[in-house]
C-alpha cells in the first residue's frame, strides 16, 4: 500500500493560542461555572493544557482547549461542597445565581434545556465553535452536534417569545 505520511504540524506557540482562543474559553466558562469561578477554572484549564502542550495541534487546538475546560468545569462542580446537590442535579448548569450574575434571563431558559442541547448551544454561540468542533468536544458526530444546536436554539426561541 502506498502509505502517505501525513505531515503534522507541531504545537503552536502557547501565547498565540491563548490570545486567539482564550477569551472564548473564558467566556464559555462564565456561563458554565459562573462569572465568579470562571477565572479559576480558566486558569486550571490553561495550566492543564500547557502541561500537555506537546499534544496540542494547530488545527485542533481550539476544540482540545474546550474539552479540557469542560472536564475542569465538571471537576469544579464535583469539588463544590458549598452547595451539596443531588447526583441528578450535578450537571445542571448554569446555577440559578449564575443567571443573575450574567444579568440575562435567557440563561434560565438555557438551564432548562436538556444537557446535550445546553452544552451544544453554549459551545456554538458562547464558545463560537463549529459543529465539527462541538462534536469533538462532546464526543458525538458532527450531524448530532448540529441537531443538538438546532433543537436547543429552537426551544430557546420558542420560550423567549413566550415571555
Amino acid at each position, binding site marked *: 500500500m502506498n502509505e502517505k505520511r501525513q505531515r503534522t504540524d*507541531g*504545537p*503552536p*506557540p*502557547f*501565547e*498565540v493560542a*491563548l490570545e486567539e482562543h*482564550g*477569551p*472564548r474559553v*473564558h*467566556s464559555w466558562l*462564565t*456561563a458554565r461555572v459562573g462569572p465568579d469561578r470562571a*477565572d479559576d477554572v*480558566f*486558569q486550571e484549564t*490553561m*495550566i492543564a493544557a*500547557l*502541561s500537555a*502542550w*506537546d499534544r*496540542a495541534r494547530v488545527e485542533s487546538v481550539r476544540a482540545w482547549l474546550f474539552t479540557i475546560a469542560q472536564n475542569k468545569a465538571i471537576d469544579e462542580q464535583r469539588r463544590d461542597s458549598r452547595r451539596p446537590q443531588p447526583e441528578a442535579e450535578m450537571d445542571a448548569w448554569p446555577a440559578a445565581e449564575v443567571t443573575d450574575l*450574567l444579568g*440575562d434571563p*435567557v440563561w434560565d431558559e*438555557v438551564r432548562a434545556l436538556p444537557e446535550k442541547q445546553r452544552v451544544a*448551544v*453554549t459551545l456554538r*454561540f*458562547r464558545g*463560537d465553535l463549529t459543529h465539527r468542533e462541538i462534536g469533538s468536544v462532546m464526543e458525538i458526530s458532527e450531524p448530532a452536534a448540529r441537531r443538538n444546536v438546532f433543537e436547543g*436554539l429552537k426551544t*430557546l*426561541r420558542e420560550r*423567549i417569545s413566550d415571555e
Partner: protein
Amino acid sequence: MNSELESRLAGRPASGDNGAWARLRESLLERAEAEALIDLVYERHDSPFGTLLVVAGDEGIVRIGLHTEDEEGVLEDLARRISPRIGRGNRQPITATRSQLDLYFAGDLRHFDVPLDWRLTRGFRREVLRETAAIPYGSTASYAQLAERAGSPRAVRAAGSALATNPLPIIVPCHRVLRSDGSVGSYAGGSPMKEALLKLEREKGAD
C-alpha cells in the same frame, strides 16, 4: 429574534489588552512560570522603527524580532526550534533590554549589558556573530573582515548569511557590517533602518 438571541448567548468575551483579561493572563503566566511550564517569555517593544519583539529564555535574550518580521511567524519559528511553551510578559531580562533599547535609539547608550542566549546560532555562524558583537560602537567592518576574524577568510558568503540570520539584531550589531566596497548592504530591518543606526552612531562618535 434569531440573531438577537444568538448575540445574547454569545455575550462579550474579553479581548486584547483590556484590564481584566490582562490581569488574568498575567496571573496565568506567573503560575505557569512557577510550575516551570514556560520556556520562553516575550514582550512587544515600541521603537522609532516600529514594534520589536524581545524574547528571553532561561539564560538570557534569545531573539530580537524586528518590525519587518511578522510576530506570529517569529513565535512559530521559536516554537519549532526551541519550545512552543511561549508566554507573553514583561520580565527580566526583557525589561532591562527594553530600557536599554530606548536609551540606545536615543543615542544615550553605547553598549548593551544584558545576558544573551546564543542557542539559535551555532558553528561558524555563531563565531561570525560573536565577532560582530565585538565591533565597537560607531565603527564598521566588512563581510570579508568578519569572515577572517571568525577564522575562515574565504567564507565571505557564509559570513553574509550568518549576519542575515542574526537572531539578536541591534544588540549584536550586524548593522555595523558593510559591503567591502563600503556600500551599506542589506538589513533585515530594511536599509533605511541600517542607515539610520549608522548615522546615529556616527553622530555620537566612535568608541
